[in-house]
């Protein structure tokens, strides 16, 4: 089946940031996102959740240029003060138009 190449951006973050990040994703050009709850450990374990170690895993499929923008935004905005990681991978989707916002 004909498929289109997009980027999958995965962001793992403290739960307090979820509303803020998902709102920003839309603004930066994402057409949707999926959030799953998880727990984790990384380099620090600071965060002020009732239960430490709980975090959210947000993923969004976007065109490469939007992926760049998201990663840049996340790094600038959150990497310094929060427990957040973000990574990119390549995915193929069927309905390319679904993940691309009309400019």
């Amino acid at each position: 089946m004909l498929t289109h190449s997009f980027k999958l951006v995965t962001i793992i973050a403290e739960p307090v940031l979820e509303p803020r990040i998902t709102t920003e994703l839309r603004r930066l050009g994402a057409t949707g996102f999926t959030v799953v709850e998880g727990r984790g450990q990384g380099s620090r374990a600071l965060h002020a959740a009732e239960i430490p170690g709980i975090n959210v895993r947000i993923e969004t499929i976007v065109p490469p240029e939007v992926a760049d923008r998201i990663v840049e935004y996340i790094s600038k905005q959150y990497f310094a003060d929060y427990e957040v990681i973000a990574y990119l991978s390549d995915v193929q989707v069927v309905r390319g138009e679904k993940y691309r916002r009309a400019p």
Partner: protein
Amino acid sequence: MIETLKANLLSPIPLAFALGIVTRLMRSEFSLPKDVYSALSIYLLFALGLKGGVELAHASFDSIVAPAGVTLLLGCITPLSTYAVMRYVGRFGTSDAAGMAAHYGSVSAVTFIAAQQFMQRVGAPAEGFMPTLLTLLESPGIHIALAIGAIQRNKQLLALGGDKNAHGSVREVLHEVLTGRTMVLLVGGLVVGYFMGESGWNAVSPFFESGFKGALMLFLLEMGIVAGDRLGDLKKVGPFLLAFGIVMPLLHGAIGVILGAWAGLSPGGAAVLGTMAASASYIAAPPAVRLTLPEANPTYSLTAALAITFPFNILAGIPIYYSIAQAIAT
């Protein structure tokens, strides 16, 4: 007072709390599932609100005015004194001091409930309108602390030419505090309780009243576990915060009891008000601080609030504030 302290330690709530801590010290991985913890806290807060609302209907406006006034006053004093002590005695940075002020300026509903139960047990029940005072004390401290933090940070950022809107607007965050679980259930419960009155309460009290103490016991078991989880952080915070976590509640507790007695509260009521002032928030304050003052290290405030002040109040503080209230009354 030693007697009261000992009797307190052997009552269900402190015992369950101690069991929770011991569970963690034995490196058990047991804890209540997250949703069960939420369910218990929803139940306790809503029950508290409803009961408070029913009793509010009986209270005369006059009897509440003075206590409400001193409660708001406490809401201003406690964040300021916390900030000052952190900043000028402890030599912490602005953000850490403001973050701590938000915690100690607000209130821990569970500590409040434990105090109420204690007063009932020793035969000096607090006034029925205390839950109303609790709602008054929840947010002003957070407002004030975050405002201090925002002002100080903006000063610094402007000096550095930074972007002053980089972080969560204080307004947005305060909306979250005011519409958060504690406020919805407490204020909502008060209003519903007020309107449904005795007859409504009689219908639902087998659920909300009979089960209250047992549910509280289970909740404190979990709180012990949560506090126990933070015990490891005690080493990280240094001797200043260890002392801070005990001296600060004693100070705020004494001020609260004195102001309460002065405003005409019964000894039980004054002791509960003192407990509120002495307690530190670990539900509403942490996310608010995290979003507005992200440079503040949550390990400091959470360890102090949850691993020092909370256990101190449950195990020893409440009987102490009550002793002070009795001493004043006589």
